[in-house]
């Protein structure tokens, strides 16, 4: 690992307008991603978790430059790519690839597997048919499919196999960073494990870094080195995976963890649900966005917005509790653990 991170994102924002009509002035703005800062090191798996609408997918698309930022900077491998145009992005795309959620809609049904997995490469360099076939066979072998599958179409594969094809396509150009947006959510549990294990193996072989976006806390905790929790467009907590589950500081992280049903019939717990739902993003609450649902809320939370501050080495939180240190031991999550038996 070198000192400079592979990816650095500074104060990144993306605001979407709400319009009354096609040409009218925007009535309101949604801050889908609102001033987000983080880094991803070489060889690291960085997790983004949060519930639907928290901005994690938008953030992933911003990093991939599939949509433009409203503010902030994206520095990838030493280059500021925030305002790169299509031509300038071409060499960057070689190093920055994506794996998508739905293995059914992300593969062109009219293309054979051979063409699908080598398409990104063909867009960069001209290669002969024989070379293309050789490359495709090697990629399929890497992701656990057979060379005989080269001539098949996507509909001939199961969901898990299709996701393998999607992974082979991303690997084709030997990227450094792969943004994986809910890569296993559409798959059955036993197949999820196959795909996750494959992704971890490939990470070693190809020295990859991942940005792993998911709503599934247990997967993110398993795969990632560091995890950022998002709520209403902002990172509210950033920690290593070990600390994430054991000692969360933000009440929202704690609530998320406490809401996961435990796969243990001896530990039946009243699900420690936080009340209410994610607020309307067009009309976000004042102060801390989580304050209307937070069981620890006090006056300051309603007025002032906490910023993300490093509390201990590698652990940051945006919460006013304990003078900006967040929860310390006394968490919803712990309280549930105490109910065991």
């Amino acid at each position: 690992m070198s000192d400079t991170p592979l990816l650095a994102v500074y104060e990144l924002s993306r605001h979407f307008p709400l319009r009354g009509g096609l040409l009218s002035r925007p009535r309101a703005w949604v801050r889908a991603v609102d001033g987000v800062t983080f880094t991803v090191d070489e060889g690291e798996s960085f997790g983004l978790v949060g519930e639907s609408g928290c901005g994690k997918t938008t953030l992933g698309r911003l990093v991939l430059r599939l949509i433009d930022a409203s503010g902030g900077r994206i520095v990838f491998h030493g280059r500021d790519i925030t305002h790169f145009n299509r031509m300038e992005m071409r060499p960057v795309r070689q190093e920055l690839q994506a794996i998508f959620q739905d293995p059914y809609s992300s593969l062109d049904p009219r293309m054979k597997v051979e063409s699908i997995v080598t398409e990104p490469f063909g867009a960069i360099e001209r290669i002969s048919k024989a070379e293309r076939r050789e490359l495709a066979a090697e990629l399929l072998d890497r992701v656990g499919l057979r060379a005989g599958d080269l001539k098949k179409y996507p509909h001939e594969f199961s969901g898990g196999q299709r996701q393998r094809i999607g992974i082979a396509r991303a690997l084709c150009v030997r990227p450094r960073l792969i943004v994986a947006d809910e890569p296993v959510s559409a798959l059955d549990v036993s197949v999820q494990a196959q795909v996750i294990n494959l992704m971890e193996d490939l990470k070693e072989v190809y020295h990859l870094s991942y940005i792993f976006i998911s709503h599934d806390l247990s997967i993110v905790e398993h795969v990632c080195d560091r995890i950022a929790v998002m709520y209403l467009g902002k990172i509210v907590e950033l920690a290593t995976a070990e600390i994430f589950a054991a000692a969360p500081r933000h009440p929202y992280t704690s609530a998320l963890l406490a809401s996961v049903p435990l796969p243990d019939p001896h530990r039946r717990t009243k699900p420690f649900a936080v009340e209410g739902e994610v607020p309307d993003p067009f009309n976000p609450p004042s102060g801390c966005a989580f304050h209307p649902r937070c069981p620890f809320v006090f006056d300051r939370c309603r007025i002032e917005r906490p910023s993300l501050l490093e509390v201990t080495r590698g652990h940051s939180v945006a919460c006013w509790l304990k003078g900006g240190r967040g929860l310390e031991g006394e968490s919803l999550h712990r309280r549930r653990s105490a109910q065991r038996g």
Partner: protein
Amino acid sequence: MDMLLEVRNLSVEFHTPEGLALAVEGVSFHLAKGETLAIVGESGCGKTVTCLSILGLVPSPPGRVKAEGILFEGRDLFGVDREALREVRGKEISMIFQDPMSSLNPLLPIGRQVAEPLMTHRGLTRVQAYQDAAAWLEHVKIPAARHRLDHFPHELSGGMRQRVMIAMAMVCRPKLLIADEPTTALDVTTQAQILSVMEGLKTELAMSMLLITHDLGVVAQMAHRVVVMYAGEVVEETGVIDLFERPLHPYTEGLLKSVRHLETRIPGRTSRLMEIPGTVPPLTERIPGCKFADRCPHVLPICRKEHPDLLTAGEAHMVRCWRRDGAS
């Protein structure tokens, strides 16, 4: 315990372009009053089709349902006419589905949709029915329920829509609730809220619940007994604690091992997740032996030749495996 529902030897076939698909094959189970039975399995295992056939909701053609009987409070629902089934549906047996948007009428306000079963089944007047509807919407914790009666489904969040679905299913105080992946489409904090509402109502109404899910966490928290299905068949049936502590079928064992536990991470080391190799065989394929044989780590020669029966392997524990004396 009193028996509420008994399904005997249920089979469902579908005519498909690829041939005859056996979606459900010889499934039998029972459900006592006040009990929660979970049906667990992965996509295509037949768990949803099983439940749809209880309510006579399998489209025919292309489907064909066969059964020795579907007994609800001793009355056979299998083969009774549509009118008689309609009387039972919604009144004595209710169902909630995974995707509330596809089961709510997008053109009708939610108050009307919740009030409707009360007018149809209980003969309440419009005013009474709307009052009851509002009370139920409050009961499932919809904030400002009285002001939301004339809201349309698209104006509500996913969690709120699922609450409306639950209210609709509950208004006639059914004896049995069939819940098909009721929280799968929801966020985790919303899931916790919905599960808690369902559990509360179940106790309050002394209702039985048939819970279809792939999430073993939900099973562990909600179920009394569990039926595990694989490729259209029941492969294991037992009490929930037994299932987690002494799974006998290698498939059940594989499912349990692929569950990821939070809080068990060993610092500095990521262990590999347990996977079940291979994929589920297509339902159109006729397999002479055990359907799980190709993916099974303990496979024996007999497993590929002869189909195992579902046999008793302990107190209230059934398993369909040739190695049932000690596969695990």
